[in-house]
Structure formats: structure tokens, C-alpha cells
């Protein structure tokens, strides 16, 4: 893959995705070597995200490179009111690529217009999270394959950027996507529009029960407390959009359950010890996939 920037999963063709996943398989192990000695990755996290940040750090270090970190925003120039456009233009001078996590949608795209080094979107508000998508796809490919796939995506589909990116990417494969959420958290019009444009096979549901038996993969996301006016309403919804061991009687024996983590209550811990649980492998896959991506960009 040769893209200057990695901004949304929409930019990936099927061939792009397969190339990164194939490359990632080479890095799945304590390999990496010294291909990118002297390469510095600039980490700009305007929102806390220990997990994604550590995964990028691990990936570049395993490739022989290193990171420079803007640090937390309250200790940086940003707290003095500096614009993102200025911040990235300064840090571009220190780093060979920038990894950006920002609370506002479109932040990575805007940043990419101000710098010449590659910008990797590590999450922009409710927008996109394309590297999470690549590791999700890697995990799906390992467990169920990416074609002839029936996948259920459940939880907060409205604000969940991992969901938006994943849905776009899956549309380039022969998959049927079942979206399961309360009406108030259903897929945004923009995402639905793109899926329809791409000719994706999509259905939307308010409950898991009717589709669970068809699924090869169930991708669960966390529903956040702050999306609801009061605790009771939140609890009712959160309980309804979770999965426990008993429900799995209705599922295929090889159903793979995924989650971008962290989870709260939406996956019963009793599922962790079953073969259905794929979420920890999924988290580990972040390193080889990000190694493959960085290797192709740098």
C-alpha cells in the first residue's frame, strides 16, 4: 500500500487491506529487526488512549525505531491555545510520521493538509479509527475469513468510530453486516449512505436474538453512560445489548466474539474461557498490524 496518509478506512481498497494483513502475518512473532532504525514516530494524543498509544510505540520499537511524544495536552503548547495546524507543523520537523488522536472529527484530514510527513489517524472524535479497523480485519480473517462472512456489530453504532471504520472496510468484501443497536444509537446517516453507495449487504436490528444464529462474528462495542439522560435508562439499554454464556446456545459453534476493549459489562466474563472469545487476540494483533502499516508508510 502506498498512501501518504492514513485517514479513514474508506481510502483502503480490498487489495490495500490484503497487502497490510499479509505483511502483518510476517510480523506476528518477536520479529521486526532493524528495518527502521533512526525512524521517529511523533505521537500526538489530544485525548488519553494508553492502549492505542502503547500499541503504536511497541510497533515502531519492534521495527527498530523510536517515538517522540507530545505528552499530555495540559503540559503542552496546546493548553496555551495553539491551533492543531500549528502544532503539527512544528512536530513535523521532529518526526518521520505523525500519529494523531484528537477529539474532533476531521482533525487528521486537516492535519494532513499542513504537513508533508504521513499522518496516521488514531481516532478523530466520532469519526474514524482506521488502524483499529485493520487489526479487526486481521482478527476476522484469522478466525472466520473475510468473504462469505455474516457479522453482527452491536452497541453504540452512532458514536462508535471503530464501528464506522470497520463497516466501510467490510463493504469491500463479500460480507453481510447486521447492525444491532437501540434506535437512539443506530448507524449515522453518513455511514449508511456510504454503505448503500458501496452496494454493501446491510440489515439493521434493535435486538440480537433474531440474527445471532446466523453470525460467524459478533463485534460488541461499549455503550457509554454519558449517552443517556439517567442511570436507569442507561442500565436498561446496557443490559439489553450484552451477551452472556446462556445466549450462546443459539449461536454457531465457531462464532467468534470480538470487542475493541475496554469492555464494561457487555460481555459476560464467563465467555472469556470459551473458544468464542477473540477479544484479547484482537488486542494483541494491534502490534503486527501497525508494524505492517508503518513499514509500508515509512
Amino acid at each position, binding site marked *: 500500500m502506498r498512501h501518504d496518509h492514513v485517514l479513514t478506512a474508506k481510502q483502503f481498497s480490498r487489495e490495500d487491506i490484503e497487502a497490510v494483513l499479509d505483511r502483518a502475518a510476517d510480523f506476528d512473532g518477536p520479529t521486526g529487526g532493524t528495518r527502521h532504525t533512526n525512524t521517529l514516530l511523533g505521537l500526538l494524543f489530544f485525548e488519553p488512549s494508553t492502549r492505542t498509544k502503547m500499541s503504536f510505540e511497541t510497533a515502531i520499537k519492534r521495527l527498530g525505531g523510536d517515538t517522540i511524544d507530545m505528552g499530555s495536552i495540559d503540559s503542552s503548547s496546546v493548553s496555551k491555545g495553539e491551533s*492543531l495546524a500549528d502544532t503539527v507543523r512544528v512536530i513535523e520537523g521532529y518526526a518521520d510520521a505523525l500519529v494523531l488522536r484528537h477529539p474532533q472529527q476531521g482533525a487528521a484530514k486537516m492535519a494532513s493538509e499542513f504537513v508533508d510527513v504521513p499522518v496516521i489517524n488514531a481516532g478523530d472524535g466520532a469519526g474514524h479509527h482506521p488502524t483499529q479497523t485493520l487489526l479487526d480485519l486481521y482478527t476476522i480473517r484469522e478466525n472466520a475469513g473475510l468473504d462469505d462472512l455474516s457479522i453482527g456489530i452491536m452497541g453504540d453504532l452512532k458514536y462508535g468510530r471503530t464501528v464506522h471504520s470497520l463497516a466501510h472496510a467490510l463493504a469491500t468484501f463479500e460480507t453481510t453486516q447486521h447492525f444491532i443497536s437501540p434506535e437512539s444509537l443506530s448507524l449515522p446517516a453518513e455511514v449508511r449512505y456510504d454503505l448503500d453507495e458501496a452496494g454493501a449487504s446491510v440489515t439493521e436490528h434493535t435486538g440480537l436474538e433474531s440474527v445471532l444464529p446466523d453470525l460467524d462474528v459478533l463485534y460488541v462495542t461499549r455503550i457509554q453512560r454519558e449517552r443517556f439522560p439517567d442511570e436507569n435508562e442507561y442500565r436498561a439499554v446496557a443490559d439489553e445489548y450484552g451477551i452472556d454464556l446462556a445466549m450462546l446456545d443459539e449461536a454457531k459453534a465457531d462464532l467468534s466474539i470480538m470487542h475493541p476493549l475496554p469492555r464494561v459489562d457487555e460481555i459476560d466474563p464467563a465467555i472469556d474461557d470459551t473458544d468464542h472469545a477473540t477479544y484479547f487476540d484482537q488486542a494483541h494483533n494491534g502490534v503486527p498490524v501497525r508494524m505492517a502499516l508503518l513499514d509500508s508508510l515509512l
Partner: protein
Amino acid sequence: MTDDHQLRVGKIENGTVIDHVTGGQALNVLAILDIDGSGGEEISVGMNVPSERVGRKDIVKVEGRELSQEEVDVLSLIAPDATINIVRNYDVVEKHRVERPEEVVGVLSCPNANCITTAHEPVDSRFAVLEDGVRCAYCGTLIREGFARYIEVD
């Protein structure tokens, strides 16, 4: 026919007549074109004038300024039937329709309060023009109707 109606708001010597504007949109036309009269230009506006072609229409006449195709194409969002007449020495020397542009830059503000274009960043709003609406190039938000509500005011 048009001559008669144009007389209601006076002929212009040199400049641009924007005719067949969707009834009630004349002031939005001026807002989009960033014409507010503060530059001293002579502007006549006719609103809800009877028209054979479109029922009721608005007319905007701007004296002393010839608007380019690029400038007026953005009007297609709110006045798709508008025609542009370039006038020199009281004669119409050029007449054309507005065409849908591929994108509009710095015209509409994104309705998504969490979009980077609404933050204090040195970036213009940019919308791709689709068949059935427009879409923010940064956050992807779709606007399907009521474009006038999103016109940027400086």
C-alpha cells in the same frame, strides 16, 4: 416578458442580473455572494415577482460587477433555476444558467459542532456537492436540504 418584470426593479447599465431565483431566496443569494452593500455597490432586489416560467421568482441586480461562472455556480444549491445575465451598456451580452459545482469552499458552515472546520483552525469549510445534497469533506456530515440555513456569515 422578462423586460417588463426587470423594469420593476430598474434596468442596470453595467453589471449582473441574477434572474429566476427561487422565490424568497434573494437575500440568501446576496449572503452567499458576500454582497451586503457595505462596499457602496448599487443593488436592486425584487422578491416574489410573478414569472411565467417558475411562478414566483426573485431577481437580484448588481450594478458595476460582473460575476464569474465560478462565483455564481454555488447559487445552484439554493436557486437551481437561476439565470445569469451579464449586462454592458444596458444590453445583455452574456446569459447562462448556474451549474452545480463539484465542491463549495467557505460557503456553508458544517452543522456538526464537533467538526474540525468549526474549531479555531486556519481551514475553510469544504463540501462535496452530491446529487442529492452536500457532504462535509472533513467530518462527512450530509446536508440534504435547507442549505440557506448553513450559509457562513463572516
